């Protein structure tokens, strides 16, 4: 832990090294922003609605440059190896996460780039090495989003039967231990349950000292345990403001009580921002109810939640609509209405949110022009230099 590397300085937080280094993920903005899943077809919205967005390098460069110019703190990809079926085969076309991050690192200067790494798909030595390389290419703007996987058909493309939930976290714990040893030690041996390392060596070490930012998204008891023990930021539920408030308070408290660690919290929002509320609602209705891929959503729900009969049809229907729409707290309306909701969101205690749009390349310029100044006026974000282009 960072605190251990500064012996005697007992009041230091484990996040202070990032703050001192000027890492955007820990800057002074009260509500940090990021994009999510721009490396996958559909991003987060399961729809056949027309869009210019495609998960290509060119489109991602456009998005990265627009997000960076507006002061977004990060871009986070989705770890995805196959689609969810249905006519859209949602997320079926995707860019691999480490190479995506490396590619965007070479064309950006300020924004943080993450790789969402399924621990079961990459040896920790390779993960550590790829992370260090991107960290150097980006001059300290890389972060690792650690996921264990929950899409059986996807994980079993790699061969072995997917481990059960808790076992995946046992594996992830040892995995990140080994990654961090490669980042912080030299010529070490490791003999664990899942990995054996003989005379482990890595040069260079990460650009960031002592290591890149670590984040995770699990909110189950094991997921919370993992996040608070190892990670700097945890992603949590966006179902309601009340749940967000309770969750962010609980996880920050848990991290401190159990590990004397500080942890940041992020959530996710799906955005339909238009000049009038009517336009926003009409577009939502179009891409969700008229063009939505409810088949893909059904596949995803069935996979992630099992075929439990514990949930009512009403609950599943509501949750399925959220999947179709784009997961995340709905921000549907005018820039002013959306800003009001984000003020509420910030008041829950979360440090930031990812935003998802159906068509990033078309909608992000409008968000940057209309919503970002309102967030600055509301005190949620500091102004950025306006001489950078708002759109490409």
């Amino acid at each position, binding site marked *: 832990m960072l605190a251990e590397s500064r012996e005697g300085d007992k009041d230091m937080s484990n996040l202070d090294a990032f703050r001192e280094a000027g890492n955007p993920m820990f800057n002074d903005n009260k509500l940090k922003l990021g994009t999510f899943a721009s490396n996958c077809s559909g991003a987060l919205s399961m729809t056949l609605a027309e869009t210019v967005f495609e998960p290509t390098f060119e489109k991602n460069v456009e998005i990265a440059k627009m997000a960076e110019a507006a002061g977004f703190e990060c871009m986070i990809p989705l770890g995805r190896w196959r689609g969810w*079926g249905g006519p859209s085969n949602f997320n079926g076309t995707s860019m691999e996460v480490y190479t995506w991050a490396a590619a965007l690192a070479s064309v950006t200067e300020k924004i943080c780039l993450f790789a969402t790494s399924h621990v079961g798909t990459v040896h920790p030595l390779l993960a550590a090495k790829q992370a260090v390389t991107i960290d150097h290419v980006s001059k300290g703007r890389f972060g690792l989003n650690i996921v264990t996987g929950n899409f059986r058909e996807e994980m079993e493309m790699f061969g072995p039967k997917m481990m059960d939930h808790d076992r995946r976290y046992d594996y992830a714990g040892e995995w990140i231990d080994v990654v961090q040893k490669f980042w912080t030690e030299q010529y070490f041996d490791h003999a664990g349950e899942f990995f054996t390392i003989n005379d482990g060596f890595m040069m260079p070490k990460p650009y960031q000292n002592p290591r890149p930012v670590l984040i995770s998204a699990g909110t189950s008891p094991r997921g919370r345990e993992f996040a608070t023990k190892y990670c700097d930021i945890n992603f949590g539920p966006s179902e309601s403001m009340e749940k967000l408030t309770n969750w962010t308070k609980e996880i920050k408290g848990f991290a401190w009580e159990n590990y004397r660690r500080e942890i940041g919290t992020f959530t996710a929002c799906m955005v339909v921002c238009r000049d009038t509320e009517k336009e926003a609602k009409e577009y939502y209705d179009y891409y969700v109810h008229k063009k939505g891929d409810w088949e893909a959503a059904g596949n995803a729900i069935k996979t992630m939640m099992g075929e439990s009969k514990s949930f009512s049809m009403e609950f599943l229907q509501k949750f399925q609509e959220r999947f179709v729409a784009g997961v995340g707290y709905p921000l549907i309306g005018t820039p002013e209405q959306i800003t009001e909701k984000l003020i509420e969101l910030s008041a829950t205690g979360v440090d930031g949110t990812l935003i998802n749009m159906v068509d990033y390349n078309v909608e992000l310029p409008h968000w940057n022009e209309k919503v970002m100044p309102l967030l600055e006026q509301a005190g949620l974000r500091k102004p950025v230099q306006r001489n950078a282009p708002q759109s490409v």
Partner: protein
Amino acid sequence: MTWTIFDKPDCTDCEKGNAWLKNHGIPVHKVNVFAVSKEQISLWAELSENGAVDLIDQEQKSNTVYQTKIHNQALSDHDIVAILAEHPELIRTPVITNHEQIIIGYQSDKMKSTFRFVKIRTL
């Protein structure tokens, strides 16, 4: 054998079928169902599970031709093929076929089980 999708404009199931094939990376040749020949319809009837009756679009029940020529009529496969050849708007679309197998309408489960071991490129 090359797969072909026979579709028509303003057909929601055709939109889904085309999207499914594209987004699952299955190469397919696209043909408007109004260009189909009687011989092709006859072949489709042979390939389909229940014969030519599977090819009738039951959503067209309000169509005048359907009402006069199909509804409550005892029709042979030969009769149905002849009607559909003359009135292709009554064909249930999309029809996806490689002349050995056929999928009529948008059937996600059948498409999933049919399109396995698909060779996309030759090394």
